[in-house]
């Protein structure tokens, strides 16, 4: 069959078009993807949760603005940082005098300003989470009064607040900082912490993220106003409950045959993902899985209930790929380290140097620390 020149041209053009159309789709996949997303209508539950989380954001923004309104202009300058500034990673478990925090120091603000700052923290967290935070802070005051802070203002050292000063503990040594402008739409962040406490809450529209955060405690048990307080007591007890709910074979999988003396993913380990170890939750029965989720909730549930519910649902969806690892004694009261690691969560519980009265923990999401998934670079 003979073909004319225009026919050849048409055939060539068709082949080229066949080649380039998918190529164009590969280069511009966003349109197709967004159409797909627009095609799936939101469920009633997600709409309800979305409304609730948006209401929480409004409440947190109002609390932040109320706090800012109590400050003088120089204080506002001191407390505010750019959202993408290096301040984001400027947190630690260490006390003042060893680690220099930025932002407003509680010892340098008035009781009214301090109350407004705490109201902001309370607005972002759950009731239990805020209680945990205050228990940790009060524990540090106990540590200070017990002499833990007696190096404060060591002769020859600069005065309080200055670099190189003595180690300082107690309620005055907690700092608050805001990264970005409080907004119901644009991303911003609340950073609150001091010795044994680093709470980083990133707010992006209706979403709140609390990773990475470091709740720790020393002393792990103290008495205040006649009440015995264990800031991380439930984390300890629930961990032991879970390891003891496993049968012998499961324990063999979960218990590491080596000592873990410290946090592996502590401060400074941003962006690292270690190989998971221990027993996968896919090998646990429903009751054991519920215990594992209960352990996880001790950290996730520090954040406000609405955001915590969304995070727990995500962790539950990834449960088969979530591991539980244990090192140490299995009888409550003994010395033990444990780790929960899944695709979107890493939790470590680590007594320090064999001291049951000094506990460090860390809570991370390797995919969403500082709201990385929600914030466009």
């Amino acid at each position, binding site marked *: 069959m*003979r*073909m*004319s*020149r225009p026919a*050849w*041209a048409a*055939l*060539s*053009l*068709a*082949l*080229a078009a*066949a*080649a*380039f159309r*998918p*190529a164009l789709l*590969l280069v511009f996949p966003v349109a197709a993807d967004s159409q797909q997303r627009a095609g799936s209508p939101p469920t009633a539950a997600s709409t309800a949760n979305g409304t609730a989380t948006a209401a929480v954001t409004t409440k947190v923004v109002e609390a932040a603005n109320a706090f800012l309104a109590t400050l003088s202009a120089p204080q506002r300058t001191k407390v505010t940082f750019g959202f993408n500034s290096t301040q984001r990673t400027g947190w630690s478990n*260490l*006390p003042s005098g*060893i*680690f220099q925090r930025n932002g407003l120091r509680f010892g340098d603000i008035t009781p009214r300003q301090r109350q407004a700052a705490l109201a902001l923290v309370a607005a972002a967290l759950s009731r239990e989470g805020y209680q945990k935070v205050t228990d940790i802070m009060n524990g540090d005051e106990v*540590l200070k009064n017990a*002499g*833990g802070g*007696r*190096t404060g203002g060591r002769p020859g050292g600069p005065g309080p607040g200055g670099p*190189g000063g003595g*180690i300082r*503990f107690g309620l005055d040594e907690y700092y608050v900082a805001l990264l970005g402008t409080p907004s119901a739409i644009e991303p911003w962040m609340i950073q609150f912490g001091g*010795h044994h406490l680093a709470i980083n809450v990133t707010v992006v529209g209706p979403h709140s993220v609390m990773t990475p955060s470091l709740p720790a405690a*020393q002393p792990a048990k103290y008495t205040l106003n006649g009440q015995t307080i264990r800031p991380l007591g439930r984390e300890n007890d629930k961990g032991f409950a879970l390891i003891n709910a496993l049968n012998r074979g499961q324990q063999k999988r979960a218990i*590491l*045959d*080596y*000592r*873990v*003396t*410290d946090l*592996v993913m502590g401060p*400074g380990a941003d962006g*690292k*993902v*270690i*190989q998971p*170890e221990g027993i996968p939750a896919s090998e646990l029965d429903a009751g054991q899985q519920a215990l594992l989720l209960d352990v996880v909730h001790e950290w996730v549930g520090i954040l406000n209930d609405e955001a915590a519910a969304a995070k727990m649902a995500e962790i539950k969806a990834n449960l088969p790929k979530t591991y539980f690892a244990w090192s140490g004694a299995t009888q409550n009261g003994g010395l033990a380290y444990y780790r929960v690691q899944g695709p979107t969560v890493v939790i470590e519980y680590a007594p*320090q*140097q064999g*001291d049951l*009265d*000094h506990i460090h923990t860390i809570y991370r999401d390797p995919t969403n620390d500082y709201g990385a998934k929600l914030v466009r670079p």
Partner: protein
Amino acid sequence: MNLRRLYLPLVVLCAWLATVPPAGAHRLDEYLQATRLSIDIQRVDLEIDLTAGAALASNVFAWIDTNRDAEISSAEGDAYARQVLRSVVLKVDGWPVPVTLAGASFPQFRDMRLGVGTIRLRATAKVPSAAAGRHQVSFLNTHRLESSVYLVNALVPENPRIQLGDPRRDRGQHGLTLDYTVIADTPSPLDRTFALLAGLAMLGWLLWRFGYTLTQAVATRSRPSPAGRR
């Protein structure tokens, strides 16, 4: 008994208690050596973080500050980093591989004295065989065994062609042995799509450029010549 002989240890003990910072219960008499291994097809990277407890800080500082000028010069830091790496044995498939120092940073003595300053060493080793299949890496750190505690972990590889097996460690985490598999480098679906598209585009261009001319030539040849008509 000579009273001075009795008092002297007491005085030394009191002096020690007065100078050791009671920074809560920060690391005191342990030298924490935490290593993370990052495995790639042609290399293994090591991140070694060393934190001396407050009671050990002076000793550790003295190991590094060899000229005793109370500062860690870059030469002293480099020498200490290499000393640490000499205590490290890294093997791939059973064969020792040389570990090269890639970077080191040292804290102020003040921070070390409080038991919180961390020495950070970064090192790398070339893996001789990058072939697909099963491999094994083993790491052992024996630096300052007498006073150290250790952590060693493998990072999840960034390269999807590497799959890690179960790690094995000794109780004190001085070492780690890890089997891993390098998956053969097959073209990804994306690569295959692009190859197909490129092929189609090339065919289209060839047809456009030569197709018509070629068929014309064939047609001309197959036409009976005037001589034949004769």
